[in-house]
């Protein structure tokens, strides 16, 4: 489904700010896998997701989605295969446009944008059903300007948008980190049910170890631009928070391991 072969990313190469953010990552994710990603601050988690999304070209290595080499394809052309939700709830939606306009933009991901109507009545019906399933009462607010919704509502809408045009991959980058605990739990629940119902392959970065353990069927830990722990299947089900802390201490060489080191 998703395959990374020896992927490197160097930022500001040749300058004093040079930073090697990915150091030859190899990763193979199977269809339908739900992978949670953890690691300390600056470990390269976001860089990994951006590499997959095509935010910028990688420095070295190859990326395949569904067997197709996408290494040379920019983000907007990969978008038909990929749904994304960012940490900042403001980034995922167009605040000055209406709820239905935002959904319609997402619904046309990967299709040609011509001179047909931006939103059709059939689509409105579909959007209303999908919004009702979120259970946030948004189905009657199709023409509301997105900017007037709360952060949690916007994140839920972004999730819906990310899944709307049947992507092959869903990329979630700490998408609940900016929300209050109750809202975060709700958005996480929605994420989980969307991934299940749409049978999506998903990569989810989280700073919450409990979530990383309880959600998904595979867990990877990153450190200094590499994947250092990769657990799936029965091992993942048996995993405890203490195991994870221990593993982190092992790879990072940290003696007094605390949550804050790992979570930051």
């Amino acid at each position, binding site marked *: 489904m998703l395959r990374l072969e020896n992927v490197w990313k160097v930022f500001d190469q040749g300058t004093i700010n040079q930073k090697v953010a990915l150091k030859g990552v190899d990763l193979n994710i199977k269809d339908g896998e739900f992978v949670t990603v953890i690691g300390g601050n600056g470990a390269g988690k976001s860089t990994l997701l951006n590499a997959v999304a095509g935010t910028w070209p990688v420095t070295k290595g190859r990326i395949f989605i569904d067997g197709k080499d996408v290494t040379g394809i920019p983000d907007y052309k990969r978008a038909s295969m990929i749904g994304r939700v960012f940490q900042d709830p403001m980034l995922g939606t167009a605040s000055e446009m209406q709820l239905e306009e935002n959904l319609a933009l997402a619904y046309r991901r990967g299709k040609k944008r011509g001179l047909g109507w*931006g939103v059709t009545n059939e689509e409105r019906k579909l959007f209303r059903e999908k919004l009702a399933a979120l259970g946030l009462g948004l189905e009657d607010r199709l023409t509301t300007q997105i900017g007037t919704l709360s952060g949690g509502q916007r994140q839920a809408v972004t999730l819906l948008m990310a899944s709307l045009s049947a992507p092959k991959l869903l990329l979630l980058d700490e998408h609940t980190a900016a929300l209050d605990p109750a809202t975060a739990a709700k958005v996480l629940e929605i994420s989980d049910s969307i991934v299940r119902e749409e049978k999506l392959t998903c990569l989810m970065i989280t700073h919450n170890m409990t979530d990383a353990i309880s959600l998904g069927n595979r867990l990877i830990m990153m450190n200094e631009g590499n994947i250092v722990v990769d657990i799936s299947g029965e091992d993942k089900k048996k995993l405890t928070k203490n195991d994870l802390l221990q593993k982190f201490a092992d790879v990072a060489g940290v003696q007094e391991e605390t949550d804050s080191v790992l979570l930051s």
Partner: protein
Amino acid sequence: MTVIDYLYSLDPAKLLKNLPGGVAQGILWGLMALGVYITFRLLNVSDLTVEGSFATGGAVAVVLITGGGPQWLRALFGASSGQFPTWAALLIAFVVGVLCGLVTGMLHSYLGIPAILAGILTQLALFSVNLHIMSMSSNIPVSVDKYELYVSSRYVLRSIPIAAVIVAVIIGILYWYFGTEQGSAIRATGNNPVMSSAQGIDIERMKMIGFALSNGIVALAGGLVAQYQGFADVNMGRGASVIGLAAVIIGDVASKAIFKGHINFAVKMTFVILGGIVYYAVVILVLWLKLNTNDLKLFTAIIVALFLGIPYLQSRKRESFTSAAKGGSGNAET
């Protein structure tokens, strides 16, 4: 001259007589401001190309109407001899304006030049191009007695409804276009480029289309203004971007004062035109008050600077170190 003498010298009848001319000019410059609105408000970039493309539109229209231009083009519209159709002259002005916008778009997207600088470069280049279009003369007259023109300051009362109809049609087309899939993608690009890319929108292409459409409309407005004033001039676009901003801002403030909540896009565009009319009504007033018209651009710049600055000042007032030092604005709970 005493104040009494001065006041006595102001003739209200003259103000009334000149107001319709202000309305006509306001509508035509309001159309120019619609072009500015597309880049400034929808795409969220400042495009200074307009100062050049406005004059380009005027030059192209007047040269074609007065019998110039390439022979193949004249033949194409059946005007090898006789007058080039006025509508076709405006259409060509629009197309040339689109090309001006594309140049700025390419400088920005392909060469990575910041939008403002890209616009300034195109504008500078257009000054020479416009002189070439006008065969190296800086001013070409076009007389309403000799040629069929849509609008003219000689027939103000007839020009107003014609200008209004042209502008209404263009607002209608823009209203439709920005409601289409492509138009929505352009608005999304201006509103949130990160989200737009993630939704598969080629944002560089959308910006390109926006620059092109904006300058097409600006050039079309230039073609109409040249007809109205009876000449095309290489300098006719000087200050156009700021006048456009003034109209956009006046329209913004007025529409928000009148309507609460969501404002329909067609209404917003109509208020940009109204903003142009208000601007020119003020110009007429300034002329009537016998103030020095050379100061007009100074007034315009000050007013636009104030309106652009007001939102910032308001937020500073709510959230400033000075008020923090005094114990804050006291709304922590709400």
